[in-house]
């Protein structure tokens, strides 16, 4: 783990060094891609004047409201469909899969008809995109619970609720975290899209404004902060996952870690 972290940090540092050097040595036009140090300086200035604090706060609030809404709706729904109502799951699955791939940006324009361009439309569209991975991963987690674990537990005469709480739910934890990480990534993507479609604040709006006014440094400052926040969120969830679902990193993790086993 320690070695892996060092390697990952090394790759990122290398990238940042390249970013710093490329405009300096004329590899790219510094007017369109400014040096990394310049971007960092701009970020610090924007926070000092207080301008960025407001945008960061509102963006984070939007992302987490949307993600939280998705969890509050998706988790119980996934548990019910995965555990108690297999018939309804079978019946609604094609529809859910269709909704999950429906283009959210187009959908957002329709949502605006009904909810306007206020906060509720943004929350709705972020939650809409995030809810599907959460529902699907919850269903998968519940349905792939180890049959022999269930048998061992049932042989003790456990009731349905005990079986669910003590065996099925913990069994689903790795898959659940995988879904949550995916959803968190979606939340930040959709957040920016929503803020660009109609808002007067937030980092997405700030980036769009900067671009329209040719403030390249500010554009990069906004993009960097957004990326940083998304990575921070992902790392936080991953830490929780390592703490609460340590026995299995979930399918996504396994794919990423496969190289380590082969090496």
């Amino acid at each position, binding site marked *: 783990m320690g070695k892996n972290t060092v390697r990952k940090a090394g790759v990122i540092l290398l990238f940042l060094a390249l970013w710093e050097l490329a405009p300096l040595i004329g590899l790219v036009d510094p007017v369109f891609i400014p040096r990394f140090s310049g971007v960092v300086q701009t970020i610090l200035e924007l926070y000092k004047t207080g301008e960025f604090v407001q945008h960061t706060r509102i963006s984070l609030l939007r992302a987490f409201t949307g993600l939280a809404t998705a969890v509050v709706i998706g988790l119980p729904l996934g548990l019910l469909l995965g555990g108690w109502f297999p018939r309804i799951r079978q019946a609604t699955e094609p529809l859910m899969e269709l909704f999950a791939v429906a283009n959210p940006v187009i959908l957002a324009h329709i949502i605006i008809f009904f909810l306007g361009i206020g906060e509720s439309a943004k929350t709705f569209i972020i939650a809409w995109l995030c809810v599907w991975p959460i529902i699907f991963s919850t269903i998968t987690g519940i349905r792939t619970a180890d049959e022999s674990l*269930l048998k061992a*537990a049932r042989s003790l005469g456990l009731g349905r609720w005990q079986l669910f709480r003590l065996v099925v739910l*913990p069994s689903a934890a790795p898959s659940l975290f995988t879904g949550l990480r995916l959803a968190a990534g979606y939340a930040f993507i959709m957040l920016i899209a929503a803020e660009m479609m109609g808002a007067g604040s937030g980092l997405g709006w700030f980036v769009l404004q900067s671009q329209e006014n040719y403030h390249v440094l500010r554009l990069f400052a906004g993009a960097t902060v957004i990326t940083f926040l998304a990575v921070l969120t992902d790392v936080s969830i991953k830490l929780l996952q390592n703490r609460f679902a340590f026995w299995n990193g979930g399918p996504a993790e396994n794919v990423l870690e496969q190289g380590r086993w082969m090496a």
Partner: protein
Amino acid sequence: MARDADVPQQIQTDAKIVVKGITSVFHLKKTRTTPAGEFIALNDINLEVRKGEFLVLVGPSGCGKSTLLDILAGLAHPTSGGVYIDGKKVTGPALDRGIVLQGYALFPWRTVRQNVEFGLEIKKVPKQERAAISDNFIHLVGLDGFADRFPHELSGGMKQRVAIARALAYDPEVLLMDEPFAAVDAQTRESLQDELLRIWEATGKTILFVTHSIEEAVFLGDRVAVLTPNPGTLREIVKIDLPRPRHNSDTRSSAEFGWIRRKIWELLQNAPSDARPHPNAVPVADAISPTAAL
């Protein structure tokens, strides 16, 4: 269909376990190549197990031995007949029986200790008492010092020891073991067999042990019930008079051991001709799991 209605709820008996006229029939759905039909997994099985006895059920796959164990555990219901423990009919799973499965079935999110204490939590044993009991059983299966490890940190043999400790910890009178050592390597398997006998002698539990290994059956059992497939029938019960305590090297190399092993092998070979496995039988039997539903 004759189900539970004509089976008495209670019988007079001195035996710990009575298996009375158990028949288990699965209904097969029609497929493209086969018509709808019935598969008789168990055909009129009658069996008695004394208190403290070590009885082994041996037979090839498809003979219904695991189905019989599921019925004993209360996880499956027979089509007709009944199972009695201390004269009382089994109607479902309960804490008077412990079960050990082939695939360990340990909870990966629980430490060794927490796995062993699982049944005690269900039994609502107070925390301090739980710790004392789990210490005791972790020691019994030789895992001192591993109490706070997680299953993924253990070898296969160690995992199965934890599973045995877990099944024993809540003090069931009967231990049901479904091919518990099938997944470990030969050497570990022999040492686990040795250890199981030691644990059995120390605890005095009644053990029902399912295996397809004749060697394992003869080494462990007081008696060996030989089952033949299609339909699953109890062919004969062979008494194993090998002296106890049994030891790996001495017992296995004795002449009687070889003789009994051969006798059971012949019983399995010379199944009546109409009871020989149908070519399609095995996949069908494997495809049916009476405990598949949550």
